[in-house]
């Protein structure tokens, strides 16, 4: 148990967190090494923020261990916290302080020696694009700038581990792009873990993804692994004009063994929209068309589409796993 691997900067060992009888996290384990950007993916309430807070040392887990650079977070909090930069979900900073004043405050608390304080803060500010905002009050900054101050704050004292809780929520598209570039630059010689529920962000930024729901890890894998998974799933969408044919159509589709995750929705104009997943090697379209024509179903449209990360994620949430591909 107490034998952390020194090469991994972050190590979560069988971490559980209970609020009363509710498990926010259940037996979560993972490792993150230097130079990795790991995305923590999950719907709201999945336990992302709880995991981030445990990782940042805000509160201890109910059971399990967290090691930062091999140091147990809750046995030697001082040493472990020294190695962490944390950007909380809602970046809440003192509104009545100036940016530079605030960063100086943080730097002193993180133990940056007095003689290099000034230069240290200057370099963090220019890295985050804050060089002209030093004397502005934090309370008057826009959300994007506040996020930058939050990031600058996390970078003070050069922590090798960065914990970013939903770093891009509430920003406009150009700000999101800037923050992502910053994160990518930071990830080169650090371990970065970021939580998000924006799926494209993961494929853009992260080397590895950990999917989490209801406090448990559903899947974890690198982005190429996910991509290969994307290739061998596809969705077929069917549109039927007369919704009286709906039940018959569903029955027919249900009898085909390769059809998975079948679902039907009513459209506004009385049309029925049916979709299901299948594997791309066998193109089911001609077979379905033939079946539908034979039965006299008012088929209007049939279309195949590649599954997006979103579909996989939603599928995972529903079934709990996807062919055991990641685990």
């Amino acid at each position, binding site marked *: 148990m107490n034998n952390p691997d020194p090469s991994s900067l972050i190590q979560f060992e069988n971490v559980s967190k209970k*609020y*009363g009888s509710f498990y926010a996290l259940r037996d979560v384990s993972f490792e993150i090494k230097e130079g990795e950007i790991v995305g923590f993916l999950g719907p709201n309430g999945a336990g992302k923020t709880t995991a981030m*807070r445990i990782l*940042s*040392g*805000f*509160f*201890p887990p109910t059971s399990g261990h967290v090691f930062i650079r091999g140091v147990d977070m809750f046995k030697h*909090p*001082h*040493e472990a*916290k*020294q190695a*962490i930069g*944390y950007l*909380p979900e*809602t970046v*809440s*900073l*003192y*509104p*009545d*302080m100036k940016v530079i004043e605030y960063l100086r*405050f*943080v730097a*002193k*608390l*993180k*133990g940056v020696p007095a003689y290099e304080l000034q230069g240290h803060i200057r370099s963090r500010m220019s890295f985050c694009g804050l060089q002209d905002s030093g004397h502005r009050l934090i309370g008057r900054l826009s959300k994007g700038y506040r996020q930058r101050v939050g990031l600058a*704050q996390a970078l003070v004292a050069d922590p090798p581990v960065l914990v970013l809780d939903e770093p891009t929520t509430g920003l406009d598209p150009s700000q999101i792009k800037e923050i992502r570039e910053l994160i990518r630059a930071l990830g080169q010689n650090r371990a970065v873990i970021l939580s998000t529920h924006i799926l494209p962000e993961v494929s853009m930024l992260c080397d590895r993804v950990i999917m989490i729901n209801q406090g448990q890890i559903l899947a974890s894998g690198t982005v190429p692994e996910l991509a290969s998974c994307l290739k061998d799933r596809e969705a077929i969408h069917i549109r039927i004009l007369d919704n009286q044919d709906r039940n018959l159509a569903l029955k027919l589709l249900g009898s085909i063994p390769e059809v998975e995750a079948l679902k039907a929705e009513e459209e506004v104009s009385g049309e029925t929209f049916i979709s299901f997943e299948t594997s791309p090697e066998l193109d089911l379209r001609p077979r379905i068309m033939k079946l539908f024509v034979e039965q006299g179903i008012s088929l209007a449209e049939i279309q195949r589409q590649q599954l997006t990360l979103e579909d996989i994620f939603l599928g995972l949430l529903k079934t709990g796993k996807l062919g055991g591909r990641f685990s």
Partner: protein
Amino acid sequence: MRKVLTIARKEFSSCFHSWVGVLMATFFFLASGVFFVILVLSYAKISTNPQQYGLSNFSGINQTQYIFGSFFSNLSIMLLFLAPILTMRSFSEERRQETLELLFTYPLSDFEIVAGKQLGILCFFATLLLPLSGYLAVFRSTGGEFEWIPVLLGFLGFWLLGSAYLAAGVFISSLTKSPVVSALGTFSVLLVFWIFDWVKDIATGPWTHIFSELSPLAHYKNFTLGILDVQDMVFFCFFFFYFLFLTLRSIETRNWKS
């Protein structure tokens, strides 16, 4: 220690950043000035015609005692309002703005956070007392006379009483997210302690002694009379550190609570 001072300094300067701190300082300065002037004038009035006030001779009234003793007693009532307002922001505001979360993730111990905050507020309170020395200077320069030791003891006693009240306020502030609830809570608790002082006037029995011993006001009275008693010092220290300890426990509860 550097970290404690960093937090203390931030806490101290945030008192000046907010209108609450500045307004309270102004209010305290003006109100205590009014008290002082009234006391000086009433003393002057008695001194011109002691018989009218039922005093056979004037020599029994000590000038220091009459003016400064009553001055410090009156100030203690102002503390009932001052302490809740000065402390209502310390933890409640940080909880409301969620800035406390970030503070907990820095390499700091809980003790450093609590001690820093307490120290900052104590320093602010001490600066509130500085302008009061101006009254002394004016009083002295216009020909008034007083004895130094009792006056300085009065200041010391007032600062100790204030520190004790502020420690209680910081503790209550750590319990709630709402500054208003914190202020009202602190006010109620201080009121209860204040009432402890009256128990011996309205009831008899050995237990009344316990109440009056627990009352900060009873211990403060000695200071206003110019008496320095170790018991009183010990009482205030105990009161202060007890609430400091409670505050520490209260912020540690995040470890087992959501």
